């Protein structure tokens, strides 16, 4: 499902060149739940951004769903992100101007799904994360755990095959973190969604199928 061969990522400024990822080789099977661990600045989020096509490798090959992505243009990358990928971020990244339900509908907008089915799908996704009663609230009217559940609803509303979660429990207390992990496990087990999750928390990482460890941009396990 996800394959990285000798992937490097270098950030260049006028004076400094930083090697964020070095020679990463990773193969994630369909339906697998993988967690990525390592100290701050080791390249975890960079790895997730590359897999999520939010950033491009400096060298090496990346293939998603069997297709090499290197030569894809902006439109093709956008289409793939829209149809096959879902994102959950540590700081939720909900659009404050939009109601909960409108936030969840965002991925469907770019699929040109019509109004009524779009609203139904968004309501179903919110129902799945237990927030059906909050659809007309604005994000700022919700707790952190509720906001993250909205973010998960947004990530799954388009039924993506791959879910990328960047420290989804990082801003939550342990009880809310458990709730979020339960939802992710449910998606993985019952929908067969492939999940790659960056986390600092060993407790949550141990609940996944496999742990990938990074250190200074290199894969150590």
């Amino acid at each position, binding site marked *: 499902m996800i394959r990285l061969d000798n992937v490097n990522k270098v950030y260049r400024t006028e004076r400094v060149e930083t090697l964020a990822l070095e020679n990463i080789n990773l193969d994630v099977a369909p339906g697998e739940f993988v967690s990525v661990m390592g100290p701050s600045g080791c390249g975890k989020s960079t790895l997730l951004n590359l897999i999520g096509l939010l950033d491009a490798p400096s060298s090496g090959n990346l293939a998603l769903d069997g297709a090499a992505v290197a030569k894809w243009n902006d439109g093709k990358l956008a289409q793939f992100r829209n149809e096959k990928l879902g994102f959950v971020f540590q700081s939720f990244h909900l*659009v404050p*101007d939009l109601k909960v339900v409108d936030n969840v509908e*965002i991925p469907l907008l770019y699929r040109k799904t019509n109004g009524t089915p779009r609203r139904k799908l968004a309501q179903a996704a919110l129902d799945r994360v237990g927030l059906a009663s909050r659809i007309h609230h604005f994000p700022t009217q919700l707790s952190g755990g509720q906001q993250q559940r909205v973010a998960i609803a947004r990530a799954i509303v388009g039924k993506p095959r791959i879910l990328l979660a960047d420290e989804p429990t990082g801003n939550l207390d342990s009880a809310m973190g458990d709730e979020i992990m339960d939802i992710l496990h449910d998606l993985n087990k019952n929908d067969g969604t492939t999940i790659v999750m960056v986390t600092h928390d060993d407790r949550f990482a141990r609940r996944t199928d496999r742990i990938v460890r990074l250190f200074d941009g290199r894969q150590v396990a």
Partner: protein
Amino acid sequence: MLANYIKIAIKVLARRKFFTFISLFGISFTLLVLMVATAMIDNVFAPRAPESKFDRVIGVYRIGLHGEHFNSTSNPGYRFVKEYVLGLPGAEATSVFSGSSALAMYHDNRKVETHLRRTDGAYWQILDFDFVEGGPLTESDNANANFVAVMTDDMRTKLYGRGSAALGKTFEVDGQRFRVIGVVRAVPITREVGFSEIWVPIRTMKTREYERQMMGSFGGIVLARKRSDFDALRREFALRTSRFVFEDKTFDRLSAGLDTRLEFAARATLGSQFKGNRALVFRGILAGLALLFMLLPTMNLVSINLSRIMERASEIGVRKAFGASSRALIGQFIVENVVLTVIGGLIGFVLSVAVLSALSRMQLIPYAIFDINLRIFFYGLLIAVFFGLVSGVYPAWRMSRIQAVNALRGGAL
């Protein structure tokens, strides 16, 4: 998708009230000034009563005599108009008339200030005054030097009191007594040819001296059958004036042209020596000034929009992450700006209507009625869309180039 963009735009605008207020204020105020300016220009140049046939009228309003050492410019004299304009072949009608001169008259021991214009009979066929009493001066009135007059309803009130009829009554002006044969609705002073308060036949002038003057205080107009006849009429006029005899040997060159009102303004602005299409250049200058004027709020909007990109970095990152292409984001941002400017445009229109009607009521320009006609409405709409596109395109392009990963990180854009 478009409906959703508009919905999002309205939500964003409603939630960011201060930004929305600043932007709308800039757009609507600029539009207001432009609409008022356009209405004023329209009031001077657009064909409307009594000059509603003026889309087919060209005239001689100024002439110049030039020599090696001296130049002399003034209105044409009666003789010039008679010899070179009246009876121009191919014209539907031609007319000669004096300028409207301000003078004081005494009526019932009261001093009344007025404007008097002397005309021939054809003047009343080319201009379409709105008569509330009687009828126009005729060519026979002029030929026989009948002491008859047409006056405005406002003048009638000044002389005879509110609600009184004027037909058949007499009044004295400039030492001559005239009988009223017609009353018309008042004309704004911005109508160069139509404006006056009293009109009397030319030949009632005290002396015939005016008949010998090449330069003086007259004007001549030509009503063409259709606008496309203008060129042929101008050629005929040029042929006639090429035979101009310089009685004063100080001069050896004549500058005179048959102009529309706009061309005359262009000639006055650009000078008679200007070669090429004066009216087009004049329109270009006016449009350039308008664009320059609009540049300020546009730059302001661009600047506000660019700073909003920082504020909305997270949203941009999210939209990219969930499948928005650069094109879709540019579209969304432009729609947001067009929605904003159209709302600003509508507010501007409402304000313009209110201000123009207040200006009309205040009578800053006597008898002028300023209103928004469809043509001005169209210009206003065009301006609003221009605002939306110009102020949206550059920020949208900058926004679309933001790397999603940077936007989500909230770092450098």
